[in-house]
C-alpha cells in the first residue's frame, strides 16, 4: 500500500504543475502584469513609472517563462513562473495585495473553517444516511413516495434561500441564536456555529438523502440480501449489517474526497455568518480581485483534492476487502 500511496503522490506532481500552468496562463497571459498593475493602482492616474514600480515590488518585471538574458539555469529560474508559481510547491504563497503573508493568514483561518465544516460534515453524513435508511426501510410505501417528493422539493431550493431564510427565521425572528459572528473559545462559541451548521446540513439534505437512497436500493436487490433473508434474519439486521456496509462503498466515493477540502471551509456560509475562515478569506480575495490569494487557494484546493483521492482509495481498501492497492 505504501508503494501505491507513493506512486499516487508522485503522480500528483505533474497535476500540480498543470494546475499552476493553468492559473499562470489565466493571470499572466490572458492579462499582462501591466493590466494588473493598472487595475490595482486605479484606472485614472497611472503613470508608466508607477506601473514599473508596482511590478518591481512584486517581481513582475521579469520575463514570464524564459529569461533569455540570464545565463545557465537562470534562464528558467529567473522568471515570473519559477519565482511565483513554483514556490507554491513548498507552500510559500507570498504576500497578498494588502502585504500580509498569505501562508500565515491561511494558518490562522483554518481553525474557524474547520470548526464549522467538520461538525457539519459528520452530523450531515449521519443525518443523510439515517434518512435514506428510513426511506429504504419503508420502501414502496407512502412514507417512501412522499419522502422522495419532499427530497426533490428540498433540493430545488437554492442554497442562498436556506442561508437567508435560516438567518431570518431562526436568528432574527425567533432570536434563538446569534445571526452571525464567531466566538473564539469556550462553550459560548458553539452558539455561533449552530446556525451555519444547521443551514449547511439542511441545504444538502434533499440531494444527499435521495442519492443514498438509490445506493441502498441498488444493493437491496442483490443476491446476498436474499441469502441473508433466507437465513431468517430480520429486516433491520439485513439493512444495517448487510446492505449498509455494501452501500458504504458508493457513498464513500463522494464523501471521502471532500474531507481534506473541509479545511477550505464554505464560501457562502462563512461570508454570510461572518466566520473568519478560509471561505470568507477566499471570497474577500475574489471581491478585492487579489490574484495572489486566489492562486494560493487554487493550489491548496488541488493539493487537498489529490489527498482526498488517495484517501478515497485507502478507504475503499478498508471497507471493501476485495480492494487491494498495489
Amino acid at each position: 500500500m505504501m508503494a501505491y500511496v507513493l506512486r499516487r503522490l508522485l503522480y500528483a506532481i505533474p497535476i500540480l504543475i498543470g494546475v499552476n500552468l493553468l492559473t499562470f496562463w489565466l493571470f499572466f497571459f490572458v492579462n499582462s502584469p501591466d493590466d494588473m498593475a493598472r487595475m490595482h493602482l486605479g484606472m485614472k492616474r497611472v503613470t508608466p513609472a508607477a506601473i514599473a514600480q508596482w511590478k518591481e515590488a512584486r517581481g513582475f518585471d521579469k520575463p514570464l517563462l524564459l529569461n533569455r538574458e540570464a545565463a545557465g539555469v537562470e534562464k528558467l529560474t529567473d522568471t515570473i513562473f519559477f519565482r511565483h508559481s513554483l514556490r507554491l510547491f513548498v507552500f510559500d504563497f507570498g504576500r497578498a495585495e494588502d502585504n500580509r503573508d498569505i501562508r500565515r493568514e491561511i494558518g490562522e483561518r483554518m481553525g474557524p473553517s474547520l470548526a464549522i465544516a467538520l461538525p457539519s460534515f459528520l452530523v450531515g453524513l449521519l443525518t443523510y444516511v439515517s434518512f435514506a435508511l428510513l426511506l429504504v426501510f419503508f420502501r414502496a410505501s407512502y412514507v417512501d413516495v412522499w419522502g422522495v417528493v419532499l427530497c426533490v422539493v428540498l433540493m430545488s431550493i437554492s442554497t442562498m434561500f436556506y442561508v437567508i431564510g435560516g438567518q431570518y427565521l431562526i436568528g432574527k425572528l425567533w432570536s434563538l441564536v446569534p445571526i452571525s459572528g464567531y466566538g473564539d473559545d469556550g462553550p459560548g462559541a458553539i452558539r455561533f456555529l449552530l446556525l451555519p451548521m444547521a443551514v449547511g446540513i439542511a441545504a444538502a439534505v434533499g440531494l444527499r438523502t435521495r442519492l443514498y437512497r438509490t445506493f441502498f436500493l441498488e444493493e437491496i436487490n442483490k443476491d446476498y440480501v436474499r441469502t441473508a433473508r433466507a437465513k431468517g434474519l430480520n429486516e433491520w439486521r439485513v439493512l444495517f449489517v448487510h446492505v449498509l456496509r455494501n452501500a458504504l462503498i458508493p457513498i464513500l466515493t463522494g464523501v471521502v474526497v471532500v474531507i481534506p477540502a473541509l479545511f477550505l471551509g464554505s464560501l457562502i456560509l462563512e461570508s454570510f455568518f461572518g466566520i473568519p475562515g478560509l471561505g470568507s478569506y477566499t471570497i474577500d480575495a475574489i471581491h478585492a480581485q487579489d490574484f495572489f490569494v486566489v492562486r494560493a487557494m487554487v493550489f491548496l484546493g488541488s493539493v487537498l483534492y489529490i489527498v482526498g483521492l488517495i484517501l478515497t482509495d485507502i478507504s475503499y481498501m478498508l471497507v471493501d476487502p476485495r480492494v487491494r492497492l498495489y
Partner: protein
Amino acid sequence: MVPHILWTDVLIYLLLAVIAGFAVYASRHEHLRTPWRQVTRRPMAMGALVVLLAFVAVGLLDSVHYRPRLPGSATQTSSEVRSALDALLSPLRRRTEKTYSAPFATHAHGRETVLRPDGALARAYPRLLHGGAHLTDGESRLADILVKVATATGTVLLLWLPLAAWVAWRQRSPGDGWAGGWQRLWRGESELPWRTLLLTLVVLLAAIANLAWLSAYYHVLGTDQVGQDVLLKSLKSVRTGLVIGTLTTLVMLPFALFFGILAGYARGLIDDVIQYVYTTLSSIPDVLLIAAGVLSLQVYMAHHPETFDNVTTRADWRLLFLCLILGLTSWTGLCRLLRGEVLKLREADYVLAARSLGASHFAIMARHLLPNVMHIVLIAVVLDFSGLVLAEAVLSYIGVGVDPTMDSWGNMINGARLEMAREPMVWWTLGAAFLFMFTLVLAANLFADAVRDAFDPRLRR
C-alpha cells in the same frame, strides 16, 4: 429596427437545431423512442414539461434581439439592444416608480417629505405614479383585485373548458359517449396523462392571465430600489437561467463525449493524457476555477473596452464566458463517467464481434460505443440543468457570476441581502427570485427524474 444577433442567441438557435435533430433521430430509433414514450406517460413529468415549456417560451422571446431605429432617423439605430420580450413587456418597463414599493401597493414603501395641499411639509407615504393609480382614494383595493382575478380566471376557464371537453371527446372508448370519456380522463386512465396536463395548463394559463391583467394596474411583485417592476426583472432573468443551464452543457458535451470515448477505447498513452487533463482540471475546486477565469476576463474586458462597445454585448460575452468556464469544470465528471463505461463496453462481446469482422476503430466508436453511452449523456444533461441554474445564484453572490447589469435571479438575490436588513424589510425581490427559480428548478428536477428512470438501465426492472 435592425436585427441584432448576440453570440448566446446563435448558440441558442444551434441548440434548438440540435434538439430538433435529436428528436428526429430518436423518433426513428426504437431504443430511444420507447423510453421517451415512457416519460410521456409519467403525470409528474408531463406537468413539469408544461411548466418548463412556458419558461422556454419566455426565454426564446428574450433571445430575439434587435436595435430600434432612433426616432427621426431612417438609418441610425440606437445602441441599445432590445428583445422581443422587451417589446412585449414595454408597458412594464415604462411604468417605473421612484423607488421601493411593495407588491400591489398604492403607496410608496418609505416615507417621504411631501408638500401638503395646504403648503405645509409633512412626512408621508406618497401615492405611486403607476401602482394602483386608477383607484380613487376611497376605493377598496382588495375588491378591485378580486374582481380582476375573477375576470381573468373566468376568461381562462371559458377558454380551457372547450379544450378539456375536446380531449375528453377524443378519450371516449367506442362503446360509451361523453361521460365515459370524462370518466377515463378524470380517473387518469388515458394513455397520456391528460388529467395532469390539463390541470397544469389551466393553472399556468390562469397565472399568466392574472399576472398580465393585474400588472397593467399594479406592480404585482413590487418594485426595486430604482423603482423598476420586479416582475419584469424576474421575467428577464428567465433567459439568463436557461442559457446557463443549457449552453454550458452544449459547449462541454462535444469534449466530454469525444475525450471520454476516446480515452476508454484507445487506452494507453491517449488515455493517460486525457486522464491527466481531466484530473488536473477537476482537482481545482470549481468555484475557484470559475473565480480565476472570471477575474481574468474582468481585467481583460476592462482593458479592451473597444471590443465590447455596449452594455448588452459586454454582458452577453460575460454570460457566454461563464458558460464556457462552467462547462470546463463540468465536462470532467461526464468524461470520467463515459471513460469508465466505455472501458467496460469495449470488452463487450458485440464490440469484439465487430472487431473480429474487421470494423475500423472509428466505426466501432461511432456505431457501437456512442449509441450505447447516449443514455448516460442524456441523463447527465437533464440532471445538470437544475444544478447549473442553482449555481448561477451562488456565483453571482460571490461576484463571479453574470454581469451585474444583467437581469438574473442570482443578482436579484444578491441585491436582496441588503434589502432584508432594511427596516421595514423589503422581501419581495427575494420572494420573486425564489418563486421563479424554485418553479423552474423543481419542474426541471421532476422532468429529469422521469428521464433518468426511463433511460437508466439499472433502474429498469
